[in-house]
């Protein structure tokens, strides 16, 4: 059979964001996939030339809409370590709470989009309906739905009142029960299994060698989670990385489903343990020298590199996002599958392209 090259993307119905894959197919089977990026590069890192390091918090939040809070937390965490600022414990807990809420809504968003990707619209709407509760928590506690702007250097800007804590707990109760009611659909439904089981295989060795991150890595049986590095308040909270061993699209969606429940539990733990005290400290001086920060984003490991020169403008800021790390594994998953399964497998790494290109 002769080879045909089929372009997939940058505009494709299942992709909310532009990525181009050049697929070589023989018959209906993909034999090679070559990804091409660069459609939404915005040059946000370069903005540190004209915005000072406090302003940059709002800039890095805009790297990714879905996990905005986690970007800001990573940025602040890295600079605070560089400048030896001790963040008050309450602020650490609050950061943890909001970042886990972001993980919950990001995973629900993804589970919905994934269902939509293989044509299960009813499940998609159902999951987004649940997600709306988390978005409401965000809006009610921080002032904005998506880009929450709660981080500042040295802590957070908003506090939670006792009333709000009670309300969050009761809402999370609902989120959890509503999500659990869908468990059998998400994990056992015929449609879901038919489209995901055995599709887009990534073995443990491949995942390790190609440097996969986040649920893509954990879905292939490697128990690594950056939250184990104990930034923010994770040292005081109990959790185990969620691992699945099959390495297919189904395993990855199972990881995300279980992580959603885990994050709800983490928020609960953090709310129960929330210490009293200050929520931020004043940060004096300017960053100098070099530093790095790593945190776990819903899609995997997020990495920041900073270089300061003692002025209020950073000399260099480099962001490596998890989707960037997950593109080589994606290129390894695609060969051997049918053309019709490509959209589902591409979605299974939870691609966030604007994040990748910053």
């Amino acid at each position: 059979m002769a080879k045909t090259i089929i372009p997939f993307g940058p505009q494709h119905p299942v992709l909310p964001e532009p990525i181009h894959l050049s697929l070589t197919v023989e018959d209906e089977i993909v034999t090679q996939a070559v990804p091409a990026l660069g459609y939404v590069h915005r040059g946000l890192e370069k903005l540190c030339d004209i915005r000072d390091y406090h302003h940059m918090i709002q800039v890095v939040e805009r790297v990714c809409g879905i996990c905005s809070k986690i970007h800001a937390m990573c940025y602040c965490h890295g600079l605070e370590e560089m400048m030896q600022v001790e963040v008050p414990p309450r602020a650490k807990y609050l950061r943890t709470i909001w970042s886990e809420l972001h993980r919950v809504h990001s995973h629900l968003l993804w589970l919905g989009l994934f269902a939509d990707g293989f044509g299960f619209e009813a499940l998609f709407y159902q999951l987004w309906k649940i997600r709306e509760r988390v978005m409401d928590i965000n809006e009610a506690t921080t002032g904005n739905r998506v880009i929450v702007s709660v981080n500042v250097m040295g802590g957070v800007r908003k506090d939670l009142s006792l009333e709000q804590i009670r309300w969050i707990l009761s809402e999370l109760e609902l989120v959890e029960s509503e999500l659990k009611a869908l468990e059998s659909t998400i994990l056992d439904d015929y449609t879901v299994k038919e489209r995901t089981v055995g599709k887009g295989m990534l073995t443990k060795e491949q995942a390790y060698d190609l440097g996969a991150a986040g649920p893509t890595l954990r879905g292939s049986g490697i128990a690594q989670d950056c939250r184990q590095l104990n930034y923010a308040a994770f040292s005081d909270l109990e959790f185990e990385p969620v691992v699945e061993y099959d390495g297919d699209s189904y395993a990855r969606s199972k990881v995300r489903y279980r992580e959603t429940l885990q994050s709800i539990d983490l928020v609960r733990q953090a709310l129960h343990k929330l210490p009293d005290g200050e929520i931020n400290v004043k940060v004096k001086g300017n960053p100098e020298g070099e530093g790095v920060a790593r945190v776990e984003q819903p899609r995997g490991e997020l990495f920041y590199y900073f270089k300061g020169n003692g002025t209020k403008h950073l000399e260099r800021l480099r962001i490596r996002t998890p989707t960037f790390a997950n593109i080589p594994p994606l290129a390894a998953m695609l060969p051997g599958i049918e053309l019709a399964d490509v959209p589902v497998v591409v979605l299974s790494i939870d691609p966030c392209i604007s994040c990748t290109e910053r």
Partner: protein
Amino acid sequence: MFKITPMTKNILKNLITKKSTRPYPFVIREPFEESRGELYNDIDNCIFCSTCARKCPSQCITVDKEKGIWTCDPFVCVFCGTCMEACPTHCLHHKRTWRPVSGQREMIEMQGTPPKSKKKAAAKKEEASG
């Protein structure tokens, strides 16, 4: 064979429960207490110190101290609330609602009384020289 999938139960339940969407714009959800909407300046309390303009990450505020004009470009503002917290006289606030859609790029411009200290200083100078 006809098979009852787990989703069927859910769909049937949805038929008898309340709708989760609203017929916007006929029914509008009240914004939350802390929602950050349009910015406004309680201009009588503003001392035109320009702190807000310096702290704003999107640099959308301009303060004219001489004329006493405070301007914000709502098309650039990202509703982060940094200015509001930085303001020493707490005269900046976010309304809870957004501006209605607008076809023109209108600025939020507010005219206040410029601070007197300058005038006083100028008057003193005049006195001294005269």
